[in-house]
């Protein structure tokens, strides 16, 4: 479904990586590894279409993602380095707002359930600026609970999480792979998902 060939990324004068290629089908997860500064985040941003590669192409269901445009973004869920949550809003408002902006139907009941699942019950009505780093990350990850898009691209999803939350995320990833979804992620922690095939790619 996702085919990447001869991808090259140049930052400033320096080539971060070149000739990167892989193929990912439904139910498969790509575990992207590499030391700091090897271009993991850059690769993920290129895969999303946020950044342009210096060379190479990315195809989704056989068509390049530049041609697909909005149709590709409709099947893509990206969780970046930043949590993309608004400090002034409550976790519930954040979740509902991001669903509305992504053109997804999410009612309040489902949103509350998702927050409860990531362990934020009782914090729904507290502005996010009063939450800890780990709790903020949990708000961001609550998006994944009801996420049914095919391709998940996750940049360091485990950062700032405790052991229980890591297990929870691994569970969400496993369920997604079982539904036939695709995952590309970077992390410095060991990943342990129950279902699906895990492929590895090392940069640098």
């Amino acid at each position, binding site marked *: 479904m996702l085919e990447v060939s001869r991808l090259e990324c140049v930052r400033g004068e320096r080539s971060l990586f070149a000739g990167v290629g892989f193929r990912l089908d439904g139910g498969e997860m790509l575990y992207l590894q590499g030391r700091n500064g090897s271009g993991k985040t850059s690769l993920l941003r290129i895969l999303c279409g*946020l950044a342009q590669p210096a060379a190479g192409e990315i195809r989704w269901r056989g068509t390049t993602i530049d041609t697909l445009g909005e149709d590709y*973004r409709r099947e893509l869920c*990206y969780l970046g380095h930043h949590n*993309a949550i608004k400090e002034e809003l409550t976790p519930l408002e954040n979740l509902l707002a991001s669903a509305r902006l992504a053109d997804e139907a999410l009612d309040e009941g489902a949103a509350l359930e998702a927050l409860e699942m990531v362990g934020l019950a009782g914090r729904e009505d507290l502005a996010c600026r009063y939450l800890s780093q780990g709790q903020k990350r949990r708000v961001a990850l609550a998006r994944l609970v009801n996420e049914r898009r095919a391709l998940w691209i996750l940049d360091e999803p485990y950062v700032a999480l405790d052991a229980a939350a890591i297990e929870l995320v691994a569970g969400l990833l496993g369920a997604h792979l079982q539904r036939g979804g695709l995952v590309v992620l970077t992390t410095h922690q060991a990943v342990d998902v129950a279902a699906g095939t895990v492929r590895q790619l090392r940069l640098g």
Partner: protein
Amino acid sequence: MLKLVHAIISRDLRLAMRRRADIVSALFFFIIVVSLFPLGVGPEPELLRKLAPGVLWVAALLATMLSLPRLFADDHRDGTLEQLALAPQPLGLIVLGKVVAHWLVSGLPLALLAPVLGLQFDLSSDALWVLSSTLLIGTPALSGIGAIGAALTLGVRGGGVLLSLLVLPLYIPVLIFGAGAVDATVTGLGAQAHLSLLGALTLGGVFFAPWPTAAALRIALD
């Protein structure tokens, strides 16, 4: 598509309401700058009437400039802008929503406040009425054109000053026709022509500016 624009407007308004200090400080800036002029040039009604349109409009431009740098900067910093750029709709529509929301919290209060401040300049009720309408019609153009500048200077060090240098010259037509309309009313010529041109600038500014803005945002994100 309208649903998306509505979603972004309601989100931005809610954020603005949680951060009321920003809105209030821009409004007080407007009030203070306008009020300094009668104090500075002395209480001659003839002179003040002549100065009023220009002073009020220039103060409105400057007050708008105050809130512009934050139009995209906050979303850029917390990663929300990336998510908006990945939304399955044109980024231009999202920008349109943000421009409308920006106008509702910056331009609209200025237009409502202007008649009260105009009293200090001994403007007639006719002129006050026209002044308020010019601001009402003209300030959306300020938000629209300003969005292009805000997107181009996103993530640039010292972007605030650069933004002013970039955007203020582009505000000149709005200033000329806005202040001109009030002048024309004071001298008895009628403001019709000025108001039409101002309306055209606003339509152009609000509906065409989001697209170059979206392009500039994509470059800033790359």
